[in-house]
């Protein structure tokens, strides 16, 4: 899965990582994919829920690799 851009927010827990993510997504164009890397396990639930309930961005895939969580988010 190829991402157009990567945002590394490891060390930055929820909910503080959400606004930074949303600002990043808002700067991207339709069709582009962002790879978000976080290490707060709460993000696994919280970010997909916020994306689904409150935004038009689509979570395409999530991968947990040791303590790192990679979320692939598509801009519609």
């Amino acid at each position, binding site marked *: 899965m190829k991402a157009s851009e990567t945002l590394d927010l490891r060390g930055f827990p929820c909910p503080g990582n959400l606004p*930074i993510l949303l*600002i990043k997504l808002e700067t991207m164009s339709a069709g582009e994919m962002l790879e978000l890397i976080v290490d707060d396990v709460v993000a696994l639930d919280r970010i997909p829920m916020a994306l689904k309930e*409150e935004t038009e961005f689509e979570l395409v895939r999530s991968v947990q690799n040791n303590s790192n969580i990679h979320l692939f988010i598509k801009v519609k």
Partner: protein
Amino acid sequence: MTEERKICKRCIMPESKPDIILNDDGICNLCLEHDNIIKVQYQKPLESDLIKILNKNKSKARYDCMVMCSGGKDSTSALYYMKKRYKLNPLAFTFDHGFETDEAMANINNAVEILNVDFLLYKSSYMKEMFAKIVSSHSKAVICHPCSIWYMDLAFDVAARYEIPIIVAGWTKGQSTKQEIMSKCGCNIHAVEFKSMAENTKEFLNNELKELPKYKDFPHSMEEVLTRAKKRFKSTVISPHWFLPYGPEDYIPLIQKELKWKMPLFSYPEGSTNCSLNFLSVYYSMKYYGYTHYHVEASKMIREGYLLREEALSQLKFNFNEKTLQEITAKLGLEPEDNL
């Protein structure tokens, strides 16, 4: 009005157990938590990010954006930036629940006239009964919280009607930094310092409001507002103040010169342009919690290095008296002696 409480030596939060606790050195748990978070570096939003967002959404509808104008320095400068700095076609939008001040309205009228932008004023007494219920029922709900739910729902509704992709608020860094800013209102009700306030507001909306059938469709949370908004039309909420390196010391002289903006003589906190009901909201927050959301915002700005502790203490000195509170209570149709 205020009971003497121990105040954090670094920010201005008072001790309020169990949510806010001072350690032996007099430092609160919020400051200590901030010490840990600040070690992580991240790229703060830049003006180039704001320009990307604005350009992406430009010329999609009759209006490029809708600016929520309160008549205060932050939203007036936001309107100025949208029109003059970014050359957009904004719709200025103001709501008046019956407690807006003449000074605020004069600032808005001057700004929209000078900038030559379309202006929509929504005036309604719809919320008056709810405000009165909060006071008369002695609920610990914070008056500003249901009001922010109402005005955000209204803002999304108006933006949807005109298919406006961007809603611009005048929220400052203290109201936004490290909060759920793009999706939520200025206050993050999930933060520990808002926990008790949020629980009491939720309790009021879920239970006591049932006694007033006219509010049966009133959203019970900001999450519900956002879910409803998403179904109507997707608008993104941003504030230029999150991205720009300028503070009030830069944009106040600008709007004074360009938009004839005037600092209100009487508002809380000093230098703000809040509605008159805000005095009552502040009074009850102090009574029930020992602090207000202004103390929370100022404390955040102190921690982030945007405000000096001494400045914050000066701005948040109480500048109103019982007579002011009596007048507002009477305007709600309530007897002051039963409610203050």
